């Protein structure tokens, strides 16, 4: 019995969810952990050497059809390996990659599958998962049917500390990628800079009228830059010409659902709140303790944002430096 962790990488670079996955796999207590590295020719060594600790064994498969990312090829290779070794659990990240290969793998193996688990447990020879449902309003505990192999993806973040470093045996495996997958990787693309789509941002630093004047928008921009976040705003800020319309969050602007929404000097006009209330985590800074934004925010800071924001920029830069 073993647990496989499928190593996630993109354009030759390890993705940091891998550490999280290895920790999860170790915490599952369903057997030793194998990190499976699927890569194009010549790509694997770099990935293996950058592998975070936590695996007892590293299985490496290189194949021309594994270059780039092809969920069908990954699933086919993983299925072939899994049929050979029968791992109890094959674990991936609930990422764009995991969303592609994991279901395909489950289909090939006719295996029980669960996705986007926030927590996993191995109980009585079967996997149970905690999942966030109804937009995070509830959690559901689901139990998968016992099976020789179960496929699962987990939501990144919130894992226990990784296992102590050890020397993992690197095991190169021969793989075949079946022909007739009907799916070919073409290329990676990156969004051209320029036009900003605040609706796509994971983190928004949003400013309201309370920011005071156009120059103060720069304070918010500095924070956004430190965070790698996007600046958005409420309607009056657009009306004032401090920021372009494409940045506006509101019923007449854009509706956003970022993971984190930092509301600076936004007192919480309804038209604004309606368009951002579904953000994962809303942190509001406002000098007025009665500002309606605090009725929507998950976390509130009553204070002068010109004191809070510079402190925040400093703290973020520090956190980045040590991260």
């Amino acid at each position, binding site marked *: 019995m073993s647990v496989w962790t499928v190593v996630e990488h993109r354009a030759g670079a390890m993705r940091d969810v891998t550490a999280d996955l290895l920790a999860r796999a170790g915490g599952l207590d369903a057997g030793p952990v194998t990190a499976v590295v699927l890569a194009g020719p010549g790509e694997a060594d770099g990935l293996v050497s950058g592998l975070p600790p936590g695996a007892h064994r590293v299985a490496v498969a290189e194949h021309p059809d594994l270059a780039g990312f092809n969920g069908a090829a990954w699933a086919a290779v993983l299925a072939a390996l899994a049929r050979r070794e029968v791992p109890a659990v094959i674990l991936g990240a609930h990422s764009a990659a995991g969303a592609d290969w994991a279901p395909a793998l489950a289909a090939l193996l006719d295996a029980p599958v669960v996705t986007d688990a926030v927590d996993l447990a191995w109980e009585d020879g079967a996997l149970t998962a905690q999942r966030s449902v109804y937009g995070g309003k509830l959690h559901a505990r*689901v139990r998968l049917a016992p099976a020789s192999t179960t496929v699962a993806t987990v939501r990144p973040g919130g894992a226990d500390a990784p296992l102590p470093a050890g020397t993992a045996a690197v095991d190169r495996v021969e793989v075949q990628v079946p022909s007739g997958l009907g799916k070919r*990787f073409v290329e990676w*693309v990156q969004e051209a800079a320029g036009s900003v789509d605040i609706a796509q941002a*994971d983190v928004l630093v949003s400013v309201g009228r309370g920011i005071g004047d156009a120059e103060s928008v720069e304070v918010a921009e500095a924070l956004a830059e430190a965070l790698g976040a996007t600046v958005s705003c409420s309607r009056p800020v657009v009306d004032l010409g401090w920021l372009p319309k494409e940045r506006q969050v509101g019923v007449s602007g854009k509706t956003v659902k970022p993971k984190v929404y930092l509301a600076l000097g936004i007192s919480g006009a309804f038209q604004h709140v309606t368009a951002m209330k579904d953000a994962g985590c809303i942190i509001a800074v406002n000098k007025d303790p009665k500002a309606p934004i605090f009725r929507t925010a998950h976390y509130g800071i009553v204070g002068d944002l010109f004191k809070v924001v510079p402190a925040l920029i400093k703290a973020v830069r520090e956190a980045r430096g040590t991260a």
Partner: protein
Amino acid sequence: MNLAVFVKQVPDTAEADLVVAADGRSVRTGDAPLQLNEWDRFALEEAVLWKERTGGALTAFLVGPEEHEDALRRCLAVGADRAVRVWDPALPGQGPCAVARVLRAAVGDEPYDLFLCGAQAADDGFGLVGPLLAGELGIPSATLVNRLELQDGRVRCTRELEAGWGEVVDLDLPALVTIQTGINEPRYVSILGIRKARKKPIDLLGLGDVGLDDRRVGEAGSRLRVEAFAPPPAGREAEFLEGPPDAVARQVVDLLREKGGVL
């Protein structure tokens, strides 16, 4: 091009107070109105755009009870030529595997070229039905597609990855894609349009019609069982962070790390 789109009707729970039933295994969504799953709106729009562009027919499929038919009416209102609803008393409680199996059966032998699904559903959020259905059909698939073009008899898909990245893959036809929000601008479906669609028939299929028995569907066929619903661990009521700016800033950094996966 012969197109199929798969849709789901889900409760809009943004404002609803969800109540977990006494047995812990079902959820009362209160006054939450039903609506077409957000991702499916984009999938439907994409399907209609393809129909408009390439000609051919569009069939919409839904697995659900009668009160979910509105989703199919929307499909008919915006240009679906046929709507198929599959339902059977054995079906409630089923997971994505079983839904995919039911849909596979409902598709039958009809030679569709392109199948479209939403990337996930707003209620359970598995994101599984599409790719599992592709598996059942034995055709290539791509998930989280935010750009879809026809190129040399294949579909070229751009998949939305994290942090501004995308991945381009080609799929041979027939193929299945799951659609990410933002791929298009879903059109508004007017009440008059829905009213007109009420006059069009919706094909109702039972398990017998699609050749499945109830052991392969529903909870039994899902190999996944919801044991309990519960409120999420953290409360949603606002919590005030207090202290001097530096201390507050540190708390915010922790939050950013925890909630946003940033830092």
